[in-house]
């Protein structure tokens, strides 16, 4: 069971620790007349956990949607694992997406399928795993990792908010992505469950050596998971540093997040 994770760990560890896996330069995006992203520049190195903080509507989610090619930028470039996202054709984009995991705010579980079918969906269709015992093994491993070993035959409607997030995380990690993008992973959860999810994100990042961008409003989550924190306001990054550095900042905007 540990073999797959170990294999993945070795694969990722072999890569240069300093390698930049996500490079965003001069990113601009507007919706109608509203310019959401004005000039975003960001480099994320392999194995790094970057947390983006910011008020609602400042364009945090738009940034990671551009990273995964869900939105096309109006200007600037987004390079992921050495490939410029806007230049990719459909096939290349699909190929790149197999290396990126995206955890939606709502977890976005397929509600007509059981938890097992949710987890097997991308495994069968994207990773082309057809061997039933391999499928079972990977589902079992992932459910144990997220602390829900008995949830395989449950429907999403039978799960609580925290359980849905855990299953969403398991579904994303089961294909062993190199990059994880989290869109407000702890929103709508009670403080205890939020802490558990934050710890789970960190544990999974350590286990699978993923590179992550985490969008959140939750300062506890930011403290637990971040290597680096960026504060976004009005479509631009206003501050950057480690959680501890920013917590001591004298800047009014930065201070407002740490009160």
């Amino acid at each position, binding site marked *: 069971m540990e073999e797959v994770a170990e294999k993945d760990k070795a694969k990722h560890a072999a890569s240069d620790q300093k390698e930049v896996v996500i490079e965003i330069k001069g990113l601009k995006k507007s919706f109608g007349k509203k310019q959401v992203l004005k000039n975003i520049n960001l480099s994320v190195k392999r194995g790094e956990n970057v947390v983006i903080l910011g008020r609602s509507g400042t364009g945090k989610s738009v940034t990671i949607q551009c990273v995964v090619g869900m939105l096309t930028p109006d200007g600037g470039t987004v390079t992921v694992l050495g490939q410029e996202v806007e230049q990719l054709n459909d096939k290349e984009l699909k190929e790149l*997406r197999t290396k990126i995991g995206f955890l939606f705010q*709502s977890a976005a579980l*397929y509600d007509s399928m059981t938890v097992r079918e949710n987890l097997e969906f991308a495994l069968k269709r*994207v990773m082309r795993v057809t061997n039933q015992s391999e499928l079972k093994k990977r589902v079992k491993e992932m459910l144990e990792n997220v602390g829900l070993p008995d949830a395989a035959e449950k429907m999403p409607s039978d799960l609580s908010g925290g359980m849905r997030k855990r299953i969403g995380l398991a579904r994303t990690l089961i294909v062993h992505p190199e990059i994880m993008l989290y869109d407000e992973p702890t929103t709508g959860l009670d403080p205890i469950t939020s802490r558990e999810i934050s710890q789970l994100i960190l544990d999974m990042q350590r286990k699978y050596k993923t590179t992550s961008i985490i969008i959140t409003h939750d300062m506890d989550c930011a403290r637990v998971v971040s290597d680096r924190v960026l504060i976004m306001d009005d479509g631009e990054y206003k501050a950057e540093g480690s959680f501890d550095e920013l917590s001591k900042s004298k800047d009014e905007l930065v201070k407002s997040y740490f009160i």
Partner: protein
Amino acid sequence: MAEATITTGWRKWLESVGEQGVFFMRFVRNLFAGGFEWNEFVRQCYEIGYRSLTLVGITSFIMGLVLILQLRPTLVGFGAESMLPHTLAVSVIREIGPVITGIICAGKIASSIGAELGSMKVTEQIDAMEVSGANSVQYLVVTRILATSFMIPLLAMIGDLISLVGGFIALNLTDDISLTLYLHKCIAALDYTDYMPALIKTFFFGFAIGFVGCYKGYHSDHGTESVGVAANSAVVTSSLWIFFIDMLVVQVTSLLFYK
């Protein structure tokens, strides 16, 4: 002001036509792309075909029964009551059976597909499929359109038979006719120019129902209200398409067979 509204309306309509063209091309491309989702197709055939059978059966039975009861006084007036099975068979097989089945299925199936896909869109389930690298069009759209295209003709055929049973019972309420004579008269009244165009048009009805339902659901805006709008719009649009296709097929059939 009114001119601007009309221009915006036309522009939106043209945009929608363009989007439908693009959606159709995506469907065709994915139809031949390989990796057909057989399990989902069979599940959809069951949901669309088997689950609609009772409704189609009851309606068709009543239609057959009512048609005989309505036609009888007129034909008796001409001394042509022996023509009742003939008249019923031709009108049910050529026109009433396919159209009634089409309209019922537009109400039941197009709305269900529109609401289901609309809800999946709103809750980011379709986005989740896409960002995982899986092909959401192949899984959700191709299977549903093919299932409606194959199941609606089947339902229409079964509905036609049930209508004839309803007609037989209605005839025996007032007159006395044996099943053998009734069937003989019905079959003698029909040739391939009656049932072939009817069968072909039900295939197009099915395609229209599946396509419109999928298109409306897939293009819902983000918001719960849009799920209702998608379902409602799917019913209205597919019902209109059914009448339009019917008119077209009848015109072509008349030119080919009934000069």
